[in-house]
């Protein structure tokens, strides 16, 4: 059972380590990239332990490869389980994507076709991951750049079915919805209205870049207005939910990210007032 948690957080990134360790940053939680700390020791693990003493921590992975047709990597799961046991994280999440096949690892979040075959496979993989980790995980919707037709269902129906089958939760990345909707020409509102709202445990807000033909999920920009509008549309359907700003590149001073987080707080307050 995933503990309900509502608060506002940031992705913890190296340039901000001193502020998180030496001051009380105005966040309710931080999220770290799991793989950066699935190491044996040294300074990164010490810093994570110290951060954990001061803030709840969510573990967000990029290498579980939930969509791999040849199954999950047992060594990876064992290493992640050890980190989970040490950190006692708020959430453990990874993506609806794949990166590994036949012993090759792309280190990229590659897309899945939304077919019944893929649903069966991802269901089995999520079940295995949850058993190995001893807890429910959150699955994040990806930004996608290829329409792997023919599909049997939309991405949001796929996620709905996955949650129903496995009991997993959703990490809903609003920017990814916007990017994929723009790239594939679907309505992002239909997506946000179609996901299982009672399964959403965490929201990511981020920015993107315009490529030569497609939007690219670069996480190197402030959250743009269209993503804020989608967030404001989504919140009344969810109620209070853990929300965070995710920035992975061109990382600005911490106060700029905190200002973005304050905007998320303001939207949430206004939503709460409007729906009261």
């Amino acid at each position: 059972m995933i503990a309900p948690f509502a608060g506002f957080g940031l992705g913890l990134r190296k340039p901000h380590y001193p502020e998180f360790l030496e001051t009380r940053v105005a966040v309710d939680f931080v999220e770290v990239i799991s793989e950066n700390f699935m190491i044996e020791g040294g300074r990164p693990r010490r810093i994570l332990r110290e951060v954990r003493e001061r803030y709840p921590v969510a573990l967000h992975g990029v290498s579980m490869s939930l969509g791999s047709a040849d199954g999950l990597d047992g060594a990876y799961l064992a290493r992640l389980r050890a980190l989970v046991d040490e950190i006692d994280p708020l959430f453990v999440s990874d993506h609806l994507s794949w990166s590994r096949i036949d012993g090759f690892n792309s280190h990229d979040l590659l897309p899945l076709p939304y077919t019944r075959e893929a649903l069966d496979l991802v269901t089995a993989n999520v079940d295995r991951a949850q058993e190995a980790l001893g807890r429910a995980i959150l699955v994040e919707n990806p930004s996608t750049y290829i329409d792997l037709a023919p599909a049997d269902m939309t991405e949001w129906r796929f996620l709905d079915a996955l949650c129903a089958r496995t009991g997993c939760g959703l990490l809903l990345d609003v920017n990814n919805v916007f990017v994929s909707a723009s790239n594939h020409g679907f309505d992002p509102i239909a997506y946000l209205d179609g996901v299982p709202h009672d399964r959403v445990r965490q929201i990511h807000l981020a920015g993107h870049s315009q490529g030569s033909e497609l939007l690219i999920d670069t996480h190197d920009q402030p959250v743009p207005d269209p993503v804020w509008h989608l967030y404001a549309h989504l919140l009344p359907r969810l109620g209070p939910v853990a929300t965070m700003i995710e920035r992975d590149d061109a990382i600005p001073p911490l106060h700029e990210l905190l200002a973005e987080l304050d905007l998320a707080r303001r939207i949430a307050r206004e939503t709460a007032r409007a729906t009261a």
Partner: protein
Amino acid sequence: MSLLDLQRDMRAWLTREDGAAAIRLGGEDAAPGLHIHRNNFRASLAACLEESFTRTRDWIGHDAFAHAVAAHVERVPPSSWTLDAYPRDFPATLSLLYPGDPEVAELARIDLALAEAFVGPDAAPLAAAALREVDWDQAVLQLTPTLDLFDLTTNAPAIWSALADGIEPPAVALLPEAGAILIWRQGEAAQFRAIDQMEKQALLAARVGVPFADLCAGLVDVLGEEDGIARAGGMLGRWIADGLIVDVFDSVDGARRRPNSC
């Protein structure tokens, strides 16, 4: 197409830009997206190598390093779930690219070993005071798990240090006899020290559990009694100062031989 076949096609396109695979994945419509993924794939590996081999890059220059990265991505597909594993074969690629410049691969091995020591297992070194009650006739040393040793043929450590300090590096010089390097983490800082073959052999022996007294006996055999004992004592003092010794056991009963151990 089955999911397995689709994933094999996408892998083939990422690593070889397989045109037939691209057509099966959607042809022209899929091309822009496939290019984004190929760029992501190569960029993440390049960034990983760039971050891991800073001094090597400084030594050979950005353009040559970019060429080496491209050659490595072609030669060695990534296999581990962690990008931390990807740099491990890069020194071998550099050996192939620079067969007449052994310092290049040796610099890369230093970069790599320092990076691996940085995130290696934690182990607190024994304080000098804790070693006073040790019976050295029975002692087996347990060395820090981050310790790495390898042979050198050049003055790569001096070049690495100069590059790190931002000063003019010395010219490449072949060592008059085979040397070695010791790399480990002390506290949170990865360290290295050039050593000779005698110290390397002593460390290798200590690491596999050869009692310290046997190490001394071996040095006495080579150097004579007075010099052998002096050398053993000198090495031990340096290993203690470097924080290399994390525990001491009795060679007879396996019990710890230091005070305040749990």
